């Protein structure tokens, strides 16, 4: 006790400058968020300006909703919003089903092989979009592609010009998306699944439950909150798409735009290839605002249904 008094007064004395150090530490990170995240939020107002780089962004005149009128003049806006939403819906449904299936299968595997499977199904997740576009090209190239040369030709079928036929791309892109992402989400579901108490299954078997019944009445209910969380997160990103998947994998091919153009690729092309800042900023504005509304909506909905699984 004797020692306590001087020590505590000492710390008290030091508390001021010490705490300042903690506040100072936060500065670089917060500064970065300000530049990288908050300034662009205010920049959303550019959607109501006619941007002219020569007079400067801030001096450019306000034009009300002209950019939005201009955006909806062509059918492009409708197509990119439709594509983005439809792809996301397909990705959510198929991605979730595949990931849960793989997680259940992984749950049946013993140690040694488990590591092999886990390691290999995660490999596609590590690849860059650039490399994935090369893999796709190796399969789909008209002249040298594996599918045309080694599958269709031996079967006596005509070569398909994959990169000029938009009809195939919803399927191609879905396969590539699933291929790249299923390992990652399977591991997430698997992590929840291994936490399920074995005694549930043992009891079920004694009661004569079939495999399907065990999955339906034990596994899936235990995965429920993980499923809800992951689906809600994805739902909140309905207006966003993987830019690389939709831009680089189809090799920015104009012939494929009808099925590969999403909001992100449209915004990029308008901004940097067509120099059409007006349309681009209007589409981007809608994406940001609708995306935000959707996140809040999805979260509110989850809160109502199942409070514990709400994100915030």
């Amino acid at each position, binding site marked *: 006790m004797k020692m306590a008094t001087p020590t505590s007064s000492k*710390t008290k004395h030091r508390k001021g400058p*010490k*705490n300042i150090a*903690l*506040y100072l530490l*936060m500065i*670089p*990170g917060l500064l*970065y*968020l300000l530049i*990288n*995240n908050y300034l*662009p*939020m205010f*920049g*959303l107002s*550019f959607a109501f300006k006619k941007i002219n*780089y020569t007079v400067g*962004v801030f001096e450019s005149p306000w034009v009300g909703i002209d950019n939005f009128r201009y955006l909806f003049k062509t059918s492009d806006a409708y197509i990119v919003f439709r594509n983005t939403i439809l792809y996301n819906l397909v990705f959510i449904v198929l991605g979730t089903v595949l990931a849960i299936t793989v997680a259940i299968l992984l*749950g049946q*595997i013993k140690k040694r*092989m488990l590591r092999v499977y*886990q*390691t290999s*199904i995660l*490999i*596609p997740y590590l*690849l*860059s*979009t*650039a*490399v994935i*576009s*090369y*893999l796709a090209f*190796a399969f789909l190239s008209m002249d*040298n592609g*594996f599918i*045309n*040369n080694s599958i269709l030709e031996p079967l006596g079928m005509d070569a398909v010009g994959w990169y000029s036929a938009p009809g195939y791309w919803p399927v191609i892109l879905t396969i590539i998306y699933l291929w790249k992402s*299923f*390992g*990652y989400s399977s*591991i997430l579901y698997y*992590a929840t699944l291994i936490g399920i108490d074995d005694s549930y*299954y*043992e009891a*079920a078997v004694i009661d004569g439950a079939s495999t399907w019944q065990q999955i339906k009445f034990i596994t899936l209910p235990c995965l429920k909150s993980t499923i809800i*969380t992951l689906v809600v997160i994805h739902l909140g990103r309905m207006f966003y798409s993987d*830019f*690389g998947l939709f831009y*680089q994998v189809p090799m920015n091919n104009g012939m494929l735009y009808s099925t590969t153009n999403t909001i992100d690729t449209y*915004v990029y092309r308008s*901004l*940097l290839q067509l120099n059409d*800042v007006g349309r*681009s900023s209007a589409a981007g*504005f809608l994406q940001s605002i609708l995306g935000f509304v959707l*996140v809040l909506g999805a979260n509110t909905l989850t809160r109502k249904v199942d409070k514990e699984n709400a994100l*915030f």
Partner: protein
Amino acid sequence: MITNSRLSKIIPQTVLALLTLACLLPLLLLTMASFTDEQTLIQNGYSFLPQKFSLASYEYIFKASEAIFRAYGITFFITIVGTFLNIVMTIFLAYPLSRPEVKGRNVVAFIVFFTMLFSGGLVPTYIMYSQIFQIRDTIFALLVPSFLMSPFNVILMRNYFKTNIPEEIVEAAKLDGASELKTLLRVVLPMSSPIIGTVGLMSGLAYWNDWTNGLYYLVKRTDLYSIQNVLTNMLNNAQFLKTATQMQGVNIELGTIPSVGIRMAIAVVALVPVMIVYPFIQKSFVKGIVIGGVKG
């Protein structure tokens, strides 16, 4: 584990073995293509068992292409520097947010979290970086936008500090007279290697694989291209270049020649470092996914 003799043995093994093959075979095809003789490639296309092997593509890369080495060097540089800065900034922001004595930490945490819900998107970001900060055609273009710090990782790391670093240990260090910075470096960080590893891995992978910053901000300085930019550029320009080289005659310079085989070889070269590192970090990578996974 679901109990059923049939399901527990044959079906999972078969399906997972097939999925494993589906994940690995495309990479094998790519690798084989890079080792295939150019003539064979043109005649038979890409195949898993080419008739004639050749190292010509790799010889070309090592001999003729200084540009590929430079792009490679730039990718290593931004990955190492970017990941280091990312880890430091994430720790510096996450640690104070985990300390109860920091006033206003919840407000700051919300400021961080909010960026995950709402974003300005590409147009304002691009205009800010290119018009105001003038980072176009500089190395900062590859380092700064998007990847320097992830708000998600900040929240993740703050939660880790909160739940895994006992308050008593931090207090004890301070009573011993250690400064805040010393406490962080000597006491807290040595106990936090899993989360630092996770953040580092995610950041390193993001920098190594990124090609979008180069696409947006490198307009004239193609000498600053990362290896991923070289790859995407080559694929998109392949057709254009094919005709261009035919008209100009032979010209060994990056972006003019690359034959199909050489392009595949460059893709393999871009992939190799990831594939070499991956087996060593596989375990912590899986752990990282699970930690970061569902909720921050």
